């Protein structure tokens, strides 16, 4: 499979052309300008309101000064986020397949999923820690809960996105439900599954950090770090933690986008 990505069907040319796109000024200038404006406003605010925001220089210094700690805490957060999102993604996909096959299951489960989606994590946290203890488990579960709904909705939309005319071809052949699912609906849902991952994976990092903040007895992770530093009025450290969290989310998103682009191109979804 990995081989077919690179030695595939004459895609080298378009992807080369696209690769050079990344070097063009027009591609990079707008986001750079936007970032620049935000940082400028930040710096202005920080110099006037010392107790509201740390200056960029201070955040930078704290970030480099504590890089080892921050990365270790980030690793701890990832160790909750990634299992959490993996579980929720897998359960969402399985459930979506079931719901696609059965109206009854859809009617039974969808309200439950909505309820779970709107219930405040803060309220569930104590119960979860009571059941699952003070370790990683409750945070993994909370991350799974936070990411579950968007994963489910996207998976459902994906399974229902199959070309109705292709569906007719399957029906005219009396293909079984399983054959239709396996050979039509699941492959057709690939773009939706990637879209879901793009939303849900970065969300899981934020989710895990929030879970660390609201669950009692947390001792590691960026959520804990940010919360403690804020409580101690160490604004530079707190923001260094937030920046680290954002960078983790950005890197994961970028990874997914690259894989998505490759796979969708290879599978003929994109030219």
């Amino acid at each position, binding site marked *: 499979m990995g081989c077919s990505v690179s030695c595939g069907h004459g895609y080298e040319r378009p992807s080369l052309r696209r690769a050079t796109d990344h070097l063009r000024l027009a591609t990079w200038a707008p986001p750079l300008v936007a970032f620049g404006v935000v940082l400028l406003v930040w710096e202005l605010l920080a110099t006037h309101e010392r107790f509201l925001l740390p200056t960029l220089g201070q955040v930078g210094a704290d970030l480099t000064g504590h890089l080892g700690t921050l990365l270790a805490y980030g690793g701890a957060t990832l160790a909750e986020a990634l299992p959490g999102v993996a579980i929720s993604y897998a359960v969402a996909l399985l459930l979506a397949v079931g719901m696609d096959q059965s109206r009854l299951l859809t009617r039974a489960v969808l309200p439950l999923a909505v309820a779970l989606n709107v219930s405040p994590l803060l309220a569930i946290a104590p119960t979860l820690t009571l059941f699952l203890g003070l370790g990683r488990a409750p945070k993994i579960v909370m991350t799974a809960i936070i990411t579950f709904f968007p994963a489910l909705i996207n998976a459902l939309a994906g399974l229902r996105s199959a*070309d109705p*005319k292709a569906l007719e071809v399957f*029906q005219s052949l009396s293909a079984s439900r399983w*054959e239709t699912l396996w050979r039509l609906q699941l*492959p057709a849902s690939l773009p939706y599954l990637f879209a879901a991952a793009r939303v849900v994976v970065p969300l899981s990092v934020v989710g895990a950090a929030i879970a660390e903040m609201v669950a009692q007895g947390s001792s590691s992770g960026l959520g804990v770090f940010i919360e403690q530093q804020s409580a101690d009025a160490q604004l530079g450290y707190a923001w260094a933690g937030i920046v680290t969290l954002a960078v983790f989310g950005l890197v994961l998103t970028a990874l997914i986008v690259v894989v998505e682009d490759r796979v969708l191109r290879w599978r*003929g*979804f994109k030219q």
Partner: protein
Amino acid sequence: MAISTEPTGAEPPAGGEPYPRPTASRPAGPKPTAMPAVPEPAQAQDWIVLSGVTKRFPNVGTPALDEVDLAIPRGSFFTVIGPSGAGKSTLLRVLAGLAKPDAGEVFIFGEPPAEASRRKHLGWVPQSPALLPWRSVLDNVRLPLQVNRRAPCQPRDPERILALLGLGETLDRLPAQLSGGMRQRVAIARAFAFAPAVLLMDEPFGALDEMTREHVAHLLLELWQAERPTVVFVTHSVGEAVVLSDQVSVMGKGKLSEPVDIALPRPRPEGIEDTEAFHGLQRELRARLREAFAAPGD
């Protein structure tokens, strides 16, 4: 994977091989009629029969199919032309078992459509090619051989069918890398690949430009001539109907007219569109179409 031109070990269903009689220039046997003396049960094996078929959609005044009677003999090429909304697609969907009629009966060589579908006797070619974008041309054509494998069928060699349709060089390409005309040809190859007894084609060339249309129509004609399935074909194009068909029926407001015989000799070469006989038949069909447009109640 049993992809070969050899017959599979399984017995063909009662009624014999899917395509009997590759005879000379005309299909043997009786011609289609719009109002059949319903064929004798003994002959039912060799007819597609609709009797009194009515289909209504909720909140639509006129029925999409209004007591349609029709009998098409095995091996012939039957075309329905008519204005949009006449009920042509509904007719095909009823034949394919994709829609259930409210009244009347449908038999495909003695079987109800659902049974014909279960036995893989029906090839469906929708208006859009409906290829799977993640499958290569060859794998798209193989699809019918890969699903519902309990149904006995005598698959043709997909590569040979594709070559006959001028797609021999594109086996490994993805649909996105093909032109519209090529994609439509792949859809036709997919329908021929499992040698169904009946091909149901709903405006398969509707999205193609005039030149491509004529070309693909002639390729279809050659393939049909070689394989001789029974075809029920829907088109907007009078010329296409004349070139391809043994008989053409005009549909308007859910009603099917008495079919017109297309008494052009077969095989029909490219260029037949320029003959006087062709133009005469075209004129006759146009006149019938005008009647259908101006049907009472308009």
